[in-house]
């Protein structure tokens, strides 16, 4: 979404303009759905609940949206992210995670190199549900802008220019932030999996 459209929608929202809301909804309903689904594992009832809560909450506070504080996407994702965090807090998916951690511990191979993207991860591991659970858990712990960046760049394969527009910053800033996001992701992933290894040692 270009800056002018974004600004028009923002003004429309402040004025209670129906069309502005519809434009916002059309632009972001599906991306919000996809990202929530990715972070929570795809139970459609859960995802639809969270998407609805996100947009209803957004509808209630849209009048107070301030473009100087961030883009529409950043604002929306902040609301959605709260739903995701709430989900993790309520569901406590510890059993799934614990299983995934054990699975990770049991794997042979240069696991650090896989996470650092220095070596190829075997396809069967890439396809596994356990890896998906660990990646989801890791992403859910990252700040919202890191989540957005990583998903946009590496899952949606969006070019840096498009991401820059969505986040209202330069392409250089996107690249720089992406580097930090990758680093944060790797650190979080390692922390999760290393603590799993330690737990495993103790239990043995």
């Amino acid at each position: 979404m270009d800056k002018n459209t974004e600004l028009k929608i923002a003004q429309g929202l402040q004025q209670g303009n129906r069309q502005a809301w519809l434009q916002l909804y059309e632009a972001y309903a599906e991306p919000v759905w996809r990202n929530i689904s990715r972070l929570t594992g795809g139970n459609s009832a859960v995802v639809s609940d969270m998407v609805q809560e996100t947009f209803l909450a957004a509808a209630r506070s849209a009048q107070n949206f301030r473009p100087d504080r961030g883009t529409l996407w950043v604002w929306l994702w902040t609301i959605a992210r709260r739903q995701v965090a709430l989900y993790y807090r309520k569901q406590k998916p510890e059993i799934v995670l614990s299983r995934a951690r054990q699975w990770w511990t049991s794997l042979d191979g240069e696991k650090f190199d896989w996470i650092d993207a220095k070596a190829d991860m075997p396809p069967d591991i890439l396809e596994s549900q356990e890896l998906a659970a660990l990646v989801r858990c890791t992403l859910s712990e990252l700040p919202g802008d890191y989540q957005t960046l990583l998903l946009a760049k590496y899952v949606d394969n969006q070019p840096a220019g498009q991401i820059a527009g969505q986040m209202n910053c330069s392409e250089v800033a996107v690249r720089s932030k992406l580097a930090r996001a990758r680093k944060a992701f790797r650190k979080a992933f390692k922390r999760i999996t290393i603590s799993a290894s330690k737990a495993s040692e103790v239990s043995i």
Partner: protein
Amino acid sequence: MKAQNDKQKDKRMSLLLSAVDHGANEPDRQLLDKLKERSTAEFLAFSTDGNKQSEKTIPISKWRIIMKSRITKLAAAAVIIIMVILSVTVLDKSIPSAYAIEQTIRAYESLRYVHIKDFKQGESEPLEFWMELDKQEQMKRFRAYLPAWTIGGGPLVGVWSEGKLQILGKNDNVFVTKRAEALASEILNGVKNFDPRYVVRGLRQLEAEGKAQITTSEPSSKSDPIVITAKYPLQNDNTGQMVLFVDQNTKLVTRIIFNKSEDGYQHSLEFSDYNATVDEKVFTLGVTLDDTKIFMKNINAKLATLDINKSKVADVVNVLGEPLFYRFRGKTFQKDDLPEAYTMSYPGGFIINICKNQVVQWGCQQTPGNEILGYVIADSIQIGTPLDDVFKKLGPPVEIVEGFGTKDNKIMYEDNTDYADMNINERKGFCFSRYEDNGKEIKIYLDDNILYKGIGKVERLCFYGTVCNGKRIRFSFMDDKVIAMYEYRTEPIEEIE
């Protein structure tokens, strides 16, 4: 070379992160279309009408949440029943002119309070629901009693008031408190899906199709109710029959009999206490003797599973459930917005003091009129135990100090430092705290094994602390009887990074 390497790294990163797409589902267009309408209505309602929630928007998610909860399911069901009554009576066209259906509708418009009982065929105990509405027809408070047949296991009592839902298991010692701010309005807003106009339209359609039959009989005697009988199809292709009894004087429904409900059983619903004076006790939990008794049952065994020096708030909640209140200095806090130090208040005067997410002490205070015993220290000491018996059990004090506020009293520390900031790691004894007239809090640290009498200028008040079975304990006495007793940690509070 570097660029190629970066590209490969990006590809690997992409493969790794794309793992989140496994199992993720594509947007449900149908649901998103519905949500578009709802969210637009919500947006317009909030844009034009301040912060009021749009009555037109009833998200499916709300219903899902409501229906997930047994308590809210009951609440929703009860209100739906009222709406169904309205719709059926509106539908009926054969009622004699003496009975104007608008009278019943008007009667329900001023509904403020009602008590509903649901008697199920073959069950002796009814399911009960009490509901209070405010002048804006919003749910103010409700109480629900769910006998065992509704839920399996032991019966449950739930109350909702001021955004908080409390659920108490009568036999299983289950006590749950949770914030549910929007619960009641969600129920009521959800119920508006059953607006009589829409329900009537549907029923008329059924009647036109010959699927519903409605007959009415209005007895000449005013003391007898108007009887409305409706036959309608059930989802499983069976026919159900509903008989409504309407009070001729008030035009309110007093009873409904479902000869065959969706669950295959006959249900008889009784409606009473319409707009009666509200008994405050109905909408509270934790203040009745029964409820306190349940909480106190096995409390010692439960506490034995907690290590006072290591337990965190989550451990406490796991064992004892959510408290009635989180409080500090007379102020109540929400669970998600707690200060560093606070008190978790449970039924029967049982409290747990928390500092930096760790237990500082737990114990019990006398609650006049609600004195259910259960919490015991040193095998036999409980609220009401005479001072002499305490010393027989624990051994006599090494010294008795009378009065308050002099150096001889061995006051270790005194200032108005916040509880959260006090240096608990340097404490020698236990802490006594009181407020001066100017609101200033005074904290006094006292030595073990010394009986302090007349503390705080109250002659009949005594304090005593000691160590028993490796645990630090302390007592407050009034008129030589225990009125409060606590166990407290022996190890320092850990600093949170």
